[in-house]
Structure formats: structure tokens, C-alpha cells
């Protein structure tokens, strides 16, 4: 293991520890000292909700499934990355929202045994959990042949190959004599022998289901916010916008991962995906800019809905103006779009565009969550913009956890393109 890798792991572990400390403090301190929310103390949804939205709207799942279903050859080289990133980002996202619960220990029990199907939030959690399940199954078929190849290696990698490919179950079924069932024997043979064609015939329909679930999850999250309780969020187009936003986040993260892993590994196969990802990002950015412009014009139109136009005014000209005009619009949308449209296929330009898009998206999530709740504040009291230190600590820890998980997957699983081909 190289020194830089050790330093990276230690740094990530330190940040994760910081996150654990933040989460612990959040649950053992009194409520965050943010501005009052009518009878309550502090606005109810804050940094962790924004981070959750950011993470679960990294829509690489949809891109992976679409690439697989539509046979987009240029994107097939990044399908494995897309699946892994989707699983990690959604899992860390769900962890984030679980930490945001006041009674974290009741979450799973309550949702499984006492669920309210009229609640959008129930479906949001259900769709994302299902998406993770489908992605894991889809990914398993996608990785299986390579995992079986890896199982022949010695050491931890070989062990992991056997474990994750379920080869050990296949070996067991074929060895024991008491198993006379033809079905189990067939299953055993299937588990020990790689058969990419058969695997893909399984992966394809699961990919369709995963894609539908992903679209439902993204748009359902939009529906959760666009319910008519918060004026700025109340808009029937929000679910559609969240799908676009997920594709923007997904393609930007895939560009970053393709460029970084290619440069670290010294291979160039994944770079082949960049032109398609670049076009996808540019196209969805144009739609997002139009969406944003029309949303602010319609929602904030004077004399239509006073709380909504106040919230829009606050974002455009008030305490969120810097975030909106500079970070969200200029850094997050206009500069990347300019680079994507006019810098050709230069890798550096595409990389910077994707990085800027991610920064803009993160700021957008913060502004959307905090800024939306402004209208509910007691008039005359300053707008809640504070990010509480403990919440910030947890957010940093959660992002570090996602990075470390991705690194470990890359280190120990067959992520290389040559395996997939």
C-alpha cells in the first residue's frame, strides 16, 4: 500500500470520526439554536436534509440502467462505477436522514410495522430502499463473472470474490450428496460457472425495474417538497425538475470518477464515456437553467402568492443572493455550460465543469431547504442561514464515508473495464 493511500484512509477515518462526534452531539444536545419557527425552536429541516437530497439525487443509477437497457456502448464502460456510486450515495443518504430523525432507533420498526401509505415520505423511503435492493441485484449479475474470476486469486481479494459471487454456496450445493433436487444442483452449477450472457439476461429486466424505481424515487422526493405546505417548494414541476437534477448530479459525478480513476490507474477506457456524459450534462443543464428561470418568475410573480414571492425575493436579492447568483448560477451552471459547449472534448475542461456543477448543486440543496422555510418564519426575525457546527461535522463525516466506501470498492472489487468487456 502506498503512502498516499494510507494518508487518504487515515484522513477519511479522521473525518468519519468527526462525523460520529457531530451525530452524537446532535442527539444529546438540545435543539439547534436556529431562528424560531412559530411555536418551535429552529427550522425543522436543515443541513442533514439538504445533504440527503444532494446524495440521493446523484442519479447515476438511472444513467447505469439506461446505458444497459439502451445499449449505449460508450456508457457501458462506466456502468459498474455508476451502480457502485448509486448504491453508496443512496446508502449514505439514507444514513444521513436516519441521523436526522429524533428517534433514530424507531425508524425501521415504525416504517415496517406501522407505515402510513398516504404519506409521501413513506414512499420516498420505500422507493429508495427498493432502489438499493434492485441496484445490488443488478450489480451482482453485472459483477458476477468478474467476481468468479477474482475468487481464484489468493488472499483477501480471492475470499471476497468467493463471498460476493456466492460461489461458496454453489460449491456447497454441488459437494453435498444429500442434495438430490435437480433445481438446487442447477443453482449450484450456475453459482460456480461464469456465464455472462445468462447474467446479462437477468441484469437487463432488473435494470428496467431499477430505472423505473429510480425515476419514481427522484420524482417522489420532488413531490415530498412540492406538497402545498411551503410556498417556495409548492410547484407541480418540482418532481420533474428533481429527475433532471438527478441526471445532472449523476453525469457530473460519473465524469469526476471516470477522470480520477483513469488518471490514477493510468488507463483510458473510461475516458471514452466522457463525450456522451458531457453532452448529457450540457443538455440537462440547459433544461435546468430554463426550469429555474421560469420557476422563479412564476412562483415569485408579484401579487400572486405573497409568501412565495417573499421567499423568491430573499433568494434573488436577500441573504441567499450570493449563493444563488454566484455559486448556484455562475459557478454551478453558466461556467460549466460555457466550458462544455465551447471547450470541445478537453478532459480538463469537462472535469472542471463537472466539479463546478457539483459545487453548485450542493449550494442549491442548502438554499432550497433553508430558503424554502423562510416563509414560515415569524415576520421581522432574521432569515435562518446558520449551519450548525455539529450538523456540519456530520455532513463532512458522511461525505468522507462515501469517498472511503468508493475507494474500498475500487481497491477490492473488479472495477476495471477490461473485466466488464
Amino acid at each position, binding site marked *: 500500500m502506498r503512502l498516499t493511500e494510507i494518508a487518504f484512509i487515515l484522513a477519511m477515518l479522521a473525518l468519519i470520526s468527526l462525523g460520529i462526534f457531530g451525530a452524537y452531539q446532535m*442527539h444529546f444536545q*438540545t*435543539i439547534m439554536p436556529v431562528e*424560531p*419557527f*412559530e*411555536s*418551535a*425552536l429552529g427550522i*425543522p*429541516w436543515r443541513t442533514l436534509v439538504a445533504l440527503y437530497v444532494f446524495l440521493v439525487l446523484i442519479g447515476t443509477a438511472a444513467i447505469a440502467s439506461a446505458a444497459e437497457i439502451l445499449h449505449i456502448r460508450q456508457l457501458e464502460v462506466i456502468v459498474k462505477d455508476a451502480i457502485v456510486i448509486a448504491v453508496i450515495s443512496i446508502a449514505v443518504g439514507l444514513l444521513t436522514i436516519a441521523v*436526522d*430523525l*429524533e*428517534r*433514530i432507533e*424507531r*425508524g425501521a420498526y*415504525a*416504517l*415496517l*410495522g*406501522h*407505515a*402510513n*401509505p*398516504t*404519506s*409521501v*415520505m*413513506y414512499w420516498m*423511503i*420505500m422507493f429508495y430502499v*427498493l432502489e438499493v*435492493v*434492485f441496484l445490488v*441485484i443488478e450489480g451482482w449479475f453485472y459483477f458476477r463473472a468478474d467476481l468468479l474470476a477474482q475468487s481464484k486469486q489468493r488472499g483477501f481479494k480471492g475470499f471476497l470474490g468467493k463471498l460476493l459471487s456466492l460461489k461458496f454456496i454453489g460449491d456447497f450445493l454441488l459437494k453435498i450428496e444429500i442434495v438430490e433436487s435437480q*433445481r438446487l444442483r*442447477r*443453482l449450484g452449477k*450456475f453459482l460456480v460457472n461464469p456465464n455472462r450472457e*445468462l447474467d446479462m*439476461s*437477468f441484469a437487463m*429486466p*432488473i435494470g428496467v*425495474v431499477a430505472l423505473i424505481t429510480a425515476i419514481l424515487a427522484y420524482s417522489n422526493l420532488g413531490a*415530498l417538497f412540492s*406538497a402545498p*405546505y*411551503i410556498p417556495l417548494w409548492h410547484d407541480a414541476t418540482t418532481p420533474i425538475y428533481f429527475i433532471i437534477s438527478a441526471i445532472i448530479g449523476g453525469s457530473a459525478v460519473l465524469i469526476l470518477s471516470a477522470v480520477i480513476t483513469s488518471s490514477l490507474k493510468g488507463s483510458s477506457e473510461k475516458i471514452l464515456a466522457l463525450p456522451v456524459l458531457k453532452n448529457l450534462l450540457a443538455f440537462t443543464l440547459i433544461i435546468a437553467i430554463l426550469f429555474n428561470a421560469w420557476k422563479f418568475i412564476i412562483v415569485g410573480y408579484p401579487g400572486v402568492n405573497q409568501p412565495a414571492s417573499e421567499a423568491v425575493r430573499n433568494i434573488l436579492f436577500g441573504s441567499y443572493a450570493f449563493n444563488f447568483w454566484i455559486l448556484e448560477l455562475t459557478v454551478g451552471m453558466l461556467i460549466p455550460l460555457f466550458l462544455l459547449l465551447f471547450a470541445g472534448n478537453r478532459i480538463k475542461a469537462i472535469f472542471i465543469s463537472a466539479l463546478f456543477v457539483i459545487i453548485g448543486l450542493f449550494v442549491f440543496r442548502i438554499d432550497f431547504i433553508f430558503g424554502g*422555510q423562510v416563509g*414560515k418564519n*415569524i*415576520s*421581522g426575525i432574521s432569515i435562518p442561514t446558520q449551519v450548525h457546527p455539529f450538523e456540519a461535522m456530520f455532513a463532512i463525516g458522511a461525505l468522507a464515508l462515501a469517498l472511503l466506501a468508493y475507494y474500498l470498492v475500487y481497491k477490492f472489487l473488479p472495477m476495471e473495464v477490461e473485466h466488464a468487456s
Partner: protein
Amino acid sequence: MLRREFLKTLLAIPFIPAISMPANSRNAGSVAMVIDVEKCIGCGKCVIACKTENHVPMELPISRTWIEGYLDGRKIVMNTNENPFLNSKAKNGFYVPKLCNHCANAPCVNVCPVYARFHTKEGIVLVDKETCIGCKYCITACPYGATFVNPEEKVTDKCTFCYHRITKGLKPACVLVCPTGARKFGELKEGSEIYELLKNSRVRVLKPEAGTLPRVFYINLDAVVDL
């Protein structure tokens, strides 16, 4: 065959979660509260009595009921045991006591992912504190800002019309201590005090445009004031 069965099983996953659906009698109900804004003097006894009766931390600005004072056009809120109205030199103003409106069409009941909010047979909206997971969607959804996280119990909390008292035939604490009788509570049946008040007064509810059908009614509240 193996593939087909596998895919069939996979498609069944979404239907696995056992969903229990407690009875949710949305529009049933027979009680209501009437608040006469002209009678409220902003003494804050209701806030203190409520916090004491329901064990809400006195010093924190969270409360099941609170008073909004509109003094010389400025809105001031009393939600602790300190009364900010006493130091006011305002010449004009009025006070609006607020609390959970126990809506017949309650957004908090609809959005709660775990059925921790429900209507009683009297139409009162209660919180099941053993089930609440503290997701705070109800706080976001409530148009009246009437719900909050209780920092000691770590679950959401709100007015219950003192359900533990009224089921024993007692009045809610805020109604009991109000020195001017600005708050009235009772059954909404023909001939009752509440019924007569509502029948013979200029009544309005807060944020009627939200379509929540509140059970808290206001008398003598200036409809022009933005609440």
C-alpha cells in the same frame, strides 16, 4: 424457468412490507375551542399553565400554546414564562392566542409516515409518542406552526386540548386559568355554550385558504390582519 421465477419473486418485493392502517376517522368529532380576541389581555397565564400541565420546558421558546401580540403593527410572541408585552409601550394592539387547530383535514396526520398522528373520536389530533420517529414532516406541513420537537422526549409535541383532562370532565388548562374567559372549550352540540357563541358571533378561522377545517374558532378577529 429459473430466470422467470427469480424475476417474479423480485417483482413481488414492493408488496412485502406489512402495512397496518389504523382507523383514521378524519371528520368525526364533536369538540371545539372558541377564542375571543377582544377579551385576551396578553397576560400569558395560558402559556404558563399549559407548559406546567404538559411538562413543556418553561424557559425554552417552544410551546403548545403561545400568544402573538400585534402591537403598533409589530408582531411580538410570548412562548416562555417571560411576558414581553409587559415592557411594551405600544398604544394600539391586540393579542391572538394560538395553538394546534385540531384540523378535521389535518396535514400533519396525512404526512406522518408512521401514523404517529391520529384523530380521536372527538376529532382531536393527538401524537402517539411511542411511535413518532421525529422526522419533523408534520412541523413543515403544519400551516399554523403549532407543532415542535420536545427536546426532552425527542418526539414531536403539540396541543392536545389537554386530552387527559377533558376525558375526565375537566377543562383544558389554558381555558381554566384564563382570567377574562377569552378561551371557551366544549362540545359542538346544539344548545351548548360553544354552539351559541359560534351561532351568534362574527367567527373566523386561521388560514381558511389552507383548507384544513380547523376546530379552533376566533371571535372579533380582524380579517384584514395578516396572520
